[in-house]
């Protein structure tokens, strides 16, 4: 059981004029088939860079500097660009955030889907179009026969996002990466889209890597969750475990900042302070400047991500022993 995806010590950096941005700084995690892994963090925490690293889509001035990305046991970092092209869109697919800018405005939705199909599968143009229509129907777009020849700007935001998903799942990928797929959409459509992805996941045994800054989405959709802060994983746990027993002070802050669903309590507590500059990271724990519990050791020495209880990892000096966690809840 090596799992679908196993990322080990991934390091991705950007060499900008201002300095070296440590966007992803030595992270390891894994993802199984038919599993949804939520990746949560503020913008700039390295979620998207992690995803793009898996896809090997890091562009200049960025570089993947180290680690291994094992997909079905094979290291993607050792693949040639040509081999990667055969994996992208077929084995691993990605749905981006902004559906309007992520679709080519000069090609119809159908053309863009058929193009992916014909790129990876031996399929006639005619069958491609039939399949594109089926896909649009499958993602819940009404009148697919009509919509297939529409241009992106002619569709609503929800429909565009579905079309983008249709394109991503066209070749039944084993791993689907979703980068905040529902930020621009309203709650009902968001729910529909997650229901759809959940169904596809069950049908094809697809692994889902869901990037979001919204913990409530993770709660309803994912089995496990990773919390990222300033390029590092600070906590990883099964979803229920994380909600019941959050260990890292940052996670705690995130959980407090979710407004309760029933809206009973009005308190929306955000974490004071700012995300650190990824070029000049603090010496010790990245979170220490904002952490209420930080002490000398937190400022000086960086804590390692270590397993606290089975399946539950955290990178915090204050939670070394299970006994200490009680203190964190305060």
């Amino acid at each position, binding site marked *: 059981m090596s799992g679908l995806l196993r990322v080990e010590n991934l390091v991705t950096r950007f060499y900008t004029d201002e300095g070296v941005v440590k966007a992803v700084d030595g992270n390891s995690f894994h993802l199984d088939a038919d599993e949804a892994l939520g990746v949560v963090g503020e913008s700039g925490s390295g979620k998207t860079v992690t995803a793009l690293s898996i896809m090997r889509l890091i562009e200049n001035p960025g570089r993947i500097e180290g680690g291994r990305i094992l997909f079905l046991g094979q290291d993607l970092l050792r693949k040639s660009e040509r081999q990667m*092209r055969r994996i992208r869109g077929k084995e691993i*697919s990605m749905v981006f955030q902004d559906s309007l800018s992520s679709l080519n405005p000069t090609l119809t939705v159908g053309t863009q889907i058929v193009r992916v199909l014909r790129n990876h599968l031996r399929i006639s143009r005619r069958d491609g179009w039939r399949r594109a229509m089926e896909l649009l129907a499958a993602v819940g777009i009404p009148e697919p026969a009509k919509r297939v020849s529409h241009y992106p700007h002619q569709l609503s935001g929800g429909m565009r996002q579905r079309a*983008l998903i249709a394109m991503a799942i066209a070749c039944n990928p084993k791993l689907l990466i979703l980068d905040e797929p529902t930020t621009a959409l309203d709650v009902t459509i968001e729910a529909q889209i997650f229901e759809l992805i959940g169904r596809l996941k069950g049908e094809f045994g697809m692994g889902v890597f869901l990037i979001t800054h919204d913990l409530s989405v993770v709660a309803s959709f994912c089995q496990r969750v990773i919390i990222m802060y300033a390029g590092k994983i600070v906590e990883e746990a099964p979803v229920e475990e994380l909600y019941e027993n959050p260990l890292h002070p940052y996670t705690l802050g995130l959980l407090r900042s979710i407004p309760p669903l029933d809206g009973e309590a009005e308190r929306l507590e955000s974490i004071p302070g700012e995300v650190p500059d990824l070029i000049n990271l603090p010496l010790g724990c990245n979170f220490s400047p904002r952490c209420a519990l930080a002490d000398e050791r937190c400022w000086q020495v960086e804590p390692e991500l270590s397993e606290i209880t089975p399946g539950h990892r955290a990178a915090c000096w204050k939670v070394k022993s299970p006994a200490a966690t009680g203190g964190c809840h305060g």
Partner: protein
Amino acid sequence: MVVYLLKRLILAVPTLLIASFFIFSLVHLAPGDPIRGMLGQYQDPELIAQLRKAMGLDLPFHVQYARWLGKIVRGDLGISITVKRGAPVAELIAQRFSVTLELATFSLIIALLIAIPTGIISALRQNRLSDHVSRLIALAGVSIPNFFLGILLILLVGVYLRQPWGAGGYVPISRGLGKNLAHMFLPAVALGTAYSAIIMRMMRSAMLDAMSQDFVRTARAMGIAPWDIVRRDIVKNALIPVITVIGNSIGYLLGGSIVTETVFRLPGVGNLVIMGVFRRDFPVIQAVVLIIVVIRIFINLAVDLTYGMLDPRIRYGGTS
């Protein structure tokens, strides 16, 4: 699409009307009596009165304009006074129009054939040697005046290399298409260089713009082949703003052809208008300027339509 075309055509009418009014007013803006100005030293009062009446200059301004416009719509561009006394201007233009048209078209073709591929390659190989070289050439190209380049080409090809086709002058097509084109080649290069450089720079920056778009990343994430991404994602989208520049800069080709005709001694429309200005032949000036403006406006129209074909967002209006 048809509605869009009609809408654009109707919108062009007032622009044309005002432009024609402006051109017509130019004569009346002229300091002093235009007739006296035209006649120069032959200031015969009887001739002046005759011409005045013949040209309708004794009528109120708006009536004159209406009559002039009415004639123009019927294809009567007036009578030349001094360039070729008594000859219909329309005839003079017709004799020369093909030369200018050939020159402008030839240089447009050469310019685009060079600019578009160079712009594409330059952007795809951004900051490599070939990019730097083509950008430097483009910079020189936008800076060198076409008349200087034209004379340099004559000096090089006609004088130093002793090529008969490089010495300027016009060979009509009746004396062989090959000879005709050969003589047109240097003028077309001289005229097209700056234009080509403008388009190349625009193509390059539009390509770079398109390359940084999200949908290119999507295509890469779907494993689409690089040549297909270049063709359907990058170039197709980059061409949209470039088409506008191609159209907007056509004015440069039209204005520049006047200069180029002078350099290479080509008997074109530009040559005619220069003679018109020297000899103060107002009907000739008015007619040529009007024709150039009309062509310009119609080319812009054609460009907008092409734009519509390339960009479905315009073709179909807003969201449906």
